[in-house]
């Protein structure tokens, strides 16, 4: 079977315990937290993780995150965790990241090997004339832990790119949730220009930074590490999560907006199975459908500079009133507001 026809789910045990989870465990232990209490309820054992044989499911990782968050009891846990995440020590994928010639290659590596480098949150890259945008999507239904994972992932990408490039990069971050109480953590770890209450969880940076050469890298070493990471993915048998695959499918089919039955068929399962799987990830079909169509609409507005009528037509809305209603449901804004918002 090819990599594209398979996926991982919230209960697939594939995240090596000594990869990202160990980073979190080390952080907690450095703050004098008892390893038994940290692993309580996750079904994991410290000695097994140290032994290097444990594989965690995303669900178990979320349990670990919840415990760490509670025991650390500090607002900076996710940011400190993020600072330690990338390039990481996750085998050849980390080597490939370390040898990236520039930011563009680094982003491609993180995105391509996301099952190894960022299994909980899916990064996606978009470009327009001025900016490069990286937006992040929930891979496995993080629910209460989503914010922690988002904070950590964005911090990870920012600090990795600054470390490897050796310069301060003008990343600007924007989160979809309202400004939290501990906003100063965002200022210090993600920059003073962090915005809240946006449409996406995204970070952007002027495009010219993508191609600036990074110091001390080797193209050959990167190539080899990339191939090795690729074969690691083949061993796993997948490179993306079910939600990730579903998102891509729904986004590509956004014009037609296929129903549950058709999509289930595409993924070679029954409607009931797809429903059950989505339920397991704390979501449902309509929410995924709406998210994909919303993202397409935003993409057309922002990157393609489409007018309201053109977006409505692309998404096959015959009636402007219907389109307004749909957009309002997806984003909470009217079409004109959205356009104003995006030009900020």
């Amino acid at each position: 079977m090819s990599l594209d026809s398979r996926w991982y789910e919230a209960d697939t045990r594939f995240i090596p315990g000594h990869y990202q989870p160990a980073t979190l465990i080390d952080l907690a232990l450095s703050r004098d937290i008892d390893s038994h209490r940290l692993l309580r309820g996750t079904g994991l054992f410290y000695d097994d993780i140290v032994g290097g044989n444990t594989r965690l499911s995303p669900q178990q990782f979320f349990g670990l995150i919840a415990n760490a968050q509670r025991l650390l009891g500090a607002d900076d846990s996710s940011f400190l965790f993020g600072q330690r995440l990338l390039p990481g020590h996750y085998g050849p994928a980390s080597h490939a990241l370390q040898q990236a010639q520039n930011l563009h290659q680094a982003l491609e590596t993180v995105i391509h090997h996301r099952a190894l480098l960022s299994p909980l949150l899916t990064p996606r890259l978009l470009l327009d004339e001025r900016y490069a945008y990286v937006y992040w999507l929930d891979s496995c239904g993080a629910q209460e832990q989503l914010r922690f994972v988002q904070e950590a992932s964005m911090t990870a990408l920012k600090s990795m790119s600054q470390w490897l490039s050796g310069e301060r990069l003008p990343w600007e971050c924007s989160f979809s949730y309202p400004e939290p109480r501990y906003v100063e953590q965002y200022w210090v770890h993600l920059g003073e220009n962090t915005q809240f209450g946006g449409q996406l969880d995204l970070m952007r940076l002027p495009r010219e930074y993508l191609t600036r050469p990074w110091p001390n890298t080797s193209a050959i070493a990167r190539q080899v590490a990339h191939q090795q990471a690729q074969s690691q993915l083949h061993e796993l048998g997948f490179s993306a999560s079910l939600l990730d695959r579903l998102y891509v499918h729904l986004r590509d089919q956004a014009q037609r907006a296929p129903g549950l039955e058709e999509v289930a068929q595409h993924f070679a399962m029954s409607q009931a199975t797809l429903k059950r799987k989505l339920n397991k990830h704390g979501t449902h079909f309509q929410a995924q459908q709406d998210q994909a169509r919303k993202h397409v609409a935003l993409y057309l507005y922002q990157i393609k500079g489409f007018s309201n009528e053109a977006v409505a037509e692309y998404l096959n809305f015959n009636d402007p009133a219907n389109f307004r209603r749909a957009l309002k449901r997806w984003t909470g804004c009217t079409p004109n507001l959205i356009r104003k918002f995006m030009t900020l």
Partner: protein
Amino acid sequence: MTWLNILKHHRWKLGLLVLAANIGVLLNLAFGTPKAFHEWQWLDIIGEGGTALFVLLWLVLVLKSRPTGRVTNYLSIGLCCIFFSWWMDVLDEFIRLPKHLGWNHWLESGPMPVGMVLLTIGLYHWHREQQAINQQMEKRERIFREHRLFDKLTPLGGADYLKRQVSDCMAQSLEQQQPLSLLALDIDDFASLNQHYGHAEGDAVLQALSQLLLLNLRRHDLLCRLAGDRFVVLLPNTGESQARLLALELQQAVQSLAHKTRQHGERVYLSASTAVVMAFNEAPDELLKRLNLALARAKPVRSKRA
């Protein structure tokens, strides 16, 4: 302190308490006769037994939270006596003693006043001790204390503590017509220090820095850790030019700190950026935001270690 440590340090007191409580039970059993179930007075049992249990809980909390020493001894022995008194009181709810005995009244009421006196002496000394500690907390705490707002890494208040203090101080400075300034200090390139020497070393640097900054401040200033490697100093009765001078002094102090790594004793070279703002008539959140934006402008663009 762990439970094992508590047992080790207080084994005599705790051993004596257990022994005395047991002797009390044995004496009661030897001289008295057990009461029948229907004679039990539930209200008394709950009232007296409950009090004894609470006193025991206080004893545990005192032993667990305090370092050993004179004050702890007063408090714990006082609580032991009080517990013993209540314990004897509970026992005679279950065992009837002959009327002519005299010692049982002594065992019941004797330890109570002794315990009360010891506990009072202990509390008085605790008060004196707390005053001494308050003096040590100078520049880290102003008037108001809330342990849940302490920073987890450095011995300073965190961002929430700072926010509370900023709004208090702003009201105060408005009332007294005195200027209020805020100073932010951020270590340059702290991330690469973490990458170079490890995060544990980064934590050690932050702890060392918090002590260093305290030494360079005036008595009425307040130092807090905002987040990460960013510190904020609250400067009451201070205008902008004076605050700038202080900022410069802090910057120089950081530069001349010769921190040595714990593993190899290597010298770590540090430098800091600072920013100063004076409070206007604005919301505390706005003031902090303005301070941080000023700091962002003061940061060097390119890192030096690259």
